[in-house]
């Protein structure tokens, strides 16, 4: 529980800090400090157990099925890191309180800071690897927030994005690696994983898992070639750099190496990968650090180099190297954090971090200068300071390495070279900033910082000294415990003495010191040489930016190539997809059998004539399609032929429906043609037309083949049930109608809903549409007065058509007809009135809100459905009975007829809404443009 609290307190702090900020700027700082101190106190309360060799684990199930637990672990390694995080965190909070300017939002800063702290604690205290990964990615995210804290600076934004891209991307690799590891081991719990070294390293998945995990570690710890994000993250406020980029976040990578050391290390793959990365980073970054003019840049590259050193040590895979690695983690955290803080002070008080302008600051801020010089000396590996000790251990380990045979000299040599560089850049930092003449053009006169800003630096520098002088006494127990945590095994023999005698390592240190001084003295020629060798800025950022830019350009290219905004393309793809899957499926299941044995439809002249007519009319429509009106007439022919086919093949209801729908469609299209172009030029080239013809032909052949195959296969259907049940169960002899209103009445219910929605949608669509009708043709329009004969004939037609509708409606259940067709007939009859006499005249006589008609129709059908609930039957259960009345005789009453009446009303309403709305677009009731605005289109 305490463990959980240690992680939760800072995370909750992210919420509490802004709350506390209500009491002023300092409130946030106090809250942050208090919470950190609390967590630190809790941690220390657990420390004795850990020192006693216990591993504390507490666990709660989160998603046990996939091995995800809220489980935390405190062992030596975790304790060390948690101490660093909380201890340095406390110092950074103190420092930041004075560092931040009044313009910066303190609550926001500390909230982010606490969030980061919690995430970082989570990383180092997780027992579950997935949980570790979760916190791992959280550190990347919070670092994004912190680096981009000064959001108006473009370098801050870019640096934050770059850091997030690299570390976040590495996190994804780590996720994959952890999942593979979990797959190998069968658990994500560290206690299990760390005990399964043999299983893991002999598994086929070991190599990919290792590579992926290392990618995660290397990106986070800025190992070459992923190092470049760290210098750019220096755009962050300095407390952030001091905290994240020296002591904590970048250490997460090496923490991971340490954490996984027992499980993954030892093999050749581990050795070569980790060592190579570490070595290259160590030397390369140290060299680059020399040429940074920005203090923070220098420190950043120095950090990278030191991380390389630690990585290199873990790469050796030996217990002693691991101890050295842990020791250097501690030392580096201490001196680098203090150096960053010092750099921050200099920046804060002198207004720049450019070493070409900063000089002779010793005079202005001697106290800070001394602190910085001690820390820099520790960084350089000067004896009696903490850095020296771990560096010595490092040199010893490079020499002790057995693996490289005749190349064994390489690592010590390069390590020494890196030592030379380290001394040189440390010297440059001290000399260039604090001595080397007078400052040049500083924005302000530098002076010592406020008292409280120095305290954190003092504490850390004191630690440098104490550890450097009394290593065994000060850091000994912690190092032992932590190293034990890394190894998960008894510690090897090592000694923390300042002096181990005059050995090779001392020689290396001396070479580094002397060489470093020489190097610094020769720096002017070196700078010139460097400038000649690498003109312009040094590569990695450019490479990264280029990659990102390339990625963006590629994705824009791909996206615009695919989603090019052309419906014709999308349609062609759809057709092509259908043809492709059709061909694919048709090619399965053996050879196609083209026997005519299945044919059974008798050959008949009428049918042939209708079909030929259909083909001719279809062809005519295509040929004429650019002349819309003739094409419409052809379309009428097609529709008629289809209806005739329905009649011929014994489907009168279909024919009736098709006919009535068709005429409404033609009227609709005519209404549209009043606004749309009637003639069109061919606007696709012949290539496009051929492509389309090919696609269309392919689809046509496909459907023809499908039809043929269906028509010639044997057939069993459940329709027998409908034929048997139509009269006894549905009370109607027109099976199609009984299916529509009873067996599958729910389809019809949906179908009229579709129509109703279409009408509603159309009504909505036409709102505020101002559109100019087509210009009249060569001879103008005929006068507005409707043709006399039409007007006269339309009057008796209305009641006649209504009567036909009643007829179709009433008998639909037993004979061809039904509510839908009847509804359309009424619709057509009413449209006739509109055609003959216009909207105004007709609407004056037809004061009906068509939407109400639709609503009533829908309600009727709905109520018929719901009524069956009363008798405990499911929705739309129908009933019918035969009544005997005198004179009238026997007649049937069926609830399905009420449903059909609903259908009828809905259809009437819909037809009228659609046609009347379109009709109203032009003519006397057309919407008028708003006068004062003058915008029409």
């Amino acid at each position, binding site marked *: 529980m305490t463990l959980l609290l240690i992680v939760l307190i800072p995370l909750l702090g992210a919420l509490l800090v802004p709350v506390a900020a209500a009491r002023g700027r300092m409130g946030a700082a106090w809250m942050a400090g208090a919470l950190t101190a609390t967590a630190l106190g809790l941690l220390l309360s657990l420390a004795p157990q850990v020192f006693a060799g216990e591993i504390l684990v507490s666990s709660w199930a989160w998603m046990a099925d996939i091995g995800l637990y809220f489980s935390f672990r405190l062992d030596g390694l975790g304790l060390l890191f948690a101490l660093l995080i909380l201890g340095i965190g406390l110092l950074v909070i103190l420092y930041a309180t004075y560092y931040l300017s009044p313009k910066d939002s303190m609550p926001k800063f500390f909230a982010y800071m606490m969030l980061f702290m919690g995430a970082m604690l989570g990383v180092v205290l997780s027992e579950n690897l997935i949980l570790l990964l979760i916190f791992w990615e959280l550190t990347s995210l919070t670092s994004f927030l912190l680096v981009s804290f000064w959001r108006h600076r473009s370098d801050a934004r870019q640096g934050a994005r770059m850091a997030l891209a690299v570390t976040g991307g590495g996190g994804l690799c780590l996720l994959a690696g952890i999942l593979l590891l979990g797959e190998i081991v069968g658990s994500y719990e560290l206690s299990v994983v760390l005990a399964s070294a043999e299983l893991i390293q002999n598994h086929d998945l070991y190599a990919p898992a290792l590579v992926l995990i290392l990618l995660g570690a290397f990106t986070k710890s800025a190992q070459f070639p992923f190092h470049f994000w760290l210098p750019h993250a220096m755009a962050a406020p300095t407390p952030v750099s001091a905290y994240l980029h020296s002591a904590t976040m970048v250490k997460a990578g090496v923490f991971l190496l340490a954490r996984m050391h027992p499980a993954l290390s030892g093999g050749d793959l581990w050795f070569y990968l980790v060592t190579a990365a570490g070595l290259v980073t160590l030397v390369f970054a140290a060299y680059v650090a020399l040429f940074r003019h920005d203090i923070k840049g220098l420190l950043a590259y120095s950090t990278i180099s030191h991380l390389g050193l630690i990585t290199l040590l873990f790469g050796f895979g030996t217990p002693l190297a691991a101890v050295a690695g842990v020791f250097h983690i501690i030392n580096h955290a201490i001196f680098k954090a203090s150096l960053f803080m010092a750099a921050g002070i200099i920046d804060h008080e002198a207004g720049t971090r450019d070493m070409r302008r900063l000089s002779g600051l010793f005079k202005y801020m001697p106290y800070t200068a001394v602190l910085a010089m001690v820390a820099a000396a520790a960084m350089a590996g000067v004896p009696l300071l903490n850095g020296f000790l771990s560096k010595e251990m490092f040199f010893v380990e490079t020499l002790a390495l057995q693996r490289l045979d005749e190349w064994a000299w390489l690592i010590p040599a390069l390590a020494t070279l890196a030592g030379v560089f380290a001394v040189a850049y440390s010297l440059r930092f001290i000399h260039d900033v604090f001595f080397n003449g007078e400052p040049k053009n500083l924005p302000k006169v530098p002076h010592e910082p406020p008292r409280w800003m120095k305290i954190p630096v003092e504490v850390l520098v004191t630690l440098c000294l104490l550890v450097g002088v009394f290593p065994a006494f000060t850091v000994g127990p912690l190092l032992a415990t932590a190293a034990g945590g890394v190894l998960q095994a008894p510690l090897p023999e090592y000694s923390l003495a300042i002096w181990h005698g005059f050995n090779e390592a001392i020689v290396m240190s001396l070479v580094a010191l002397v060489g470093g001084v020489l190097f610094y003295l020769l720096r002017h020629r070196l700078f010139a040489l460097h400038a000649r060798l690498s003109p312009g800025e040094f590569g990695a950022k450019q490479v990264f930016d280029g990659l990102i830019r390339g990625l963006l350009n590629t994705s824009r290219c791909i996206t615009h190539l695919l989603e090019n905004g052309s419906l014709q393309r999308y349609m062609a793809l759809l057709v092509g997809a259908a043809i492709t899957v059709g061909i694919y499926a048709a090619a399965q299941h053996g050879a196609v059998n083209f026997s005519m044995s299945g044919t059974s439809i008798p050959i008949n002249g009428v049918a042939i004539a209708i079909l030929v007519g259909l083909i001719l009319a279809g062809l005519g429509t295509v040929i004429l399609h650019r002349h819309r009106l003739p094409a419409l007439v052809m379309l009428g022919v097609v529709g008629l032929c289809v209806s005739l086919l329905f009649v011929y093949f014994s489907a009168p209801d279909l024919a009736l429906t098709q006919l009535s729908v068709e005429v409404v469609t033609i009227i609709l299209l005519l209404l549209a043609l009043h606004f749309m172009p009637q003639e069109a030029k061919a606007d696709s080239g012949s290539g496009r037309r051929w492509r389309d013809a090919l696609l269309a032909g392919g689809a046509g052949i496909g459907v023809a083949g499908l039809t043929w195959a269906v028509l010639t296969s044997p057939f069993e259907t459940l329709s027998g049930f409908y034929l048997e049940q139509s009269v006894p169960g549905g009370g109607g002899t027109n099976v199609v109608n009984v299916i529509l209103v009873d067996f599958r009445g729910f389809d019809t219910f949906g179908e009229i809903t579709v129509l109703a929605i279409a009408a509603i949608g159309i009504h909505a669509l036409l709102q505020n549409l101002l559109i100019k009708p087509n210009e009249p043709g060569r001879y103008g329009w005929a006068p507005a007065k409707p043709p006399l004969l039409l007007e006269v004939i339309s*009057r008796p037609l209305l*009641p006649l058509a*209504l009567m036909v509708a009643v007829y179709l409606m009433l008998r639909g259940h037993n004979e061809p007809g039904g509510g839908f067709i009847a509804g359309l007939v009424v619709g057509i009859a009413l449209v006739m009135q509109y055609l003959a006499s216009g909207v105004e005249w007709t609407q004056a*006589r*037809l004061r009906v809100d068509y939407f109400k008609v639709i609503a009533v129709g829908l309600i009727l059908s709905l109520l018929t459905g719901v009524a069956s609930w009363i008798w405990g039957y499911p929705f739309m259960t129908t009933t019918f009975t035969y009544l005997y009345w005198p004179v009238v005789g026997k007649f049937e009453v069926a609830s399905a007829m009420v449903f059909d009446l609903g259908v009828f009303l809905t259809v009437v309403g819909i037809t009228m809404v659609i046609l009347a709305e379109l009709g109203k677009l032009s003519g006397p009731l057309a919407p008028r443009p708003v006068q004062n605005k003058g915008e029409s289109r």
Partner: protein
Amino acid sequence: MSIVKRLLPHPIFSLVLLMVWLLLNNTLSAGHILLGSIIALVLPWATAGFWADRLHLHKPGLALRFLLLVLWDITVANIQVAKLILSPRSKLRPAFVHYPLDMDNDFAITVLAATISLTPGTVSIDVSSDHRTLLVHGLDVGDEAALIAEIKSRYEAPIKEIFGC
């Protein structure tokens, strides 16, 4: 009387509708006569707004005779037209004829125009906006005046009588 008038605005038409209903259902059963009557009464009443004025049939007997005449003419006319269609093109003497109207009742004009269209070699094309002339297209017009005269006597006169205008 006025109640009857209101309930039964178009008695003739209601009768026609009843007949239509019975024809539609192909029956003379009592139930359908009852149902048909109801519908035939309700529909004209419900659509009353769409009717300009009541239809006056002054001479029903003449109307019936006129109907038979027209049917006969249609039959004869068709045989003539069939001949014209199947004969060589040069035999056609098409022409547009302006036929002066002596009626001003819209319904009567419509009936006349329809009759002209259904009978020998003529189609009525247009009514002038002042309703004074009817434009007729003839398929085989020898003498324009004779054609006008024949229409006048054979069709327009009885129609004028029937509708009393």
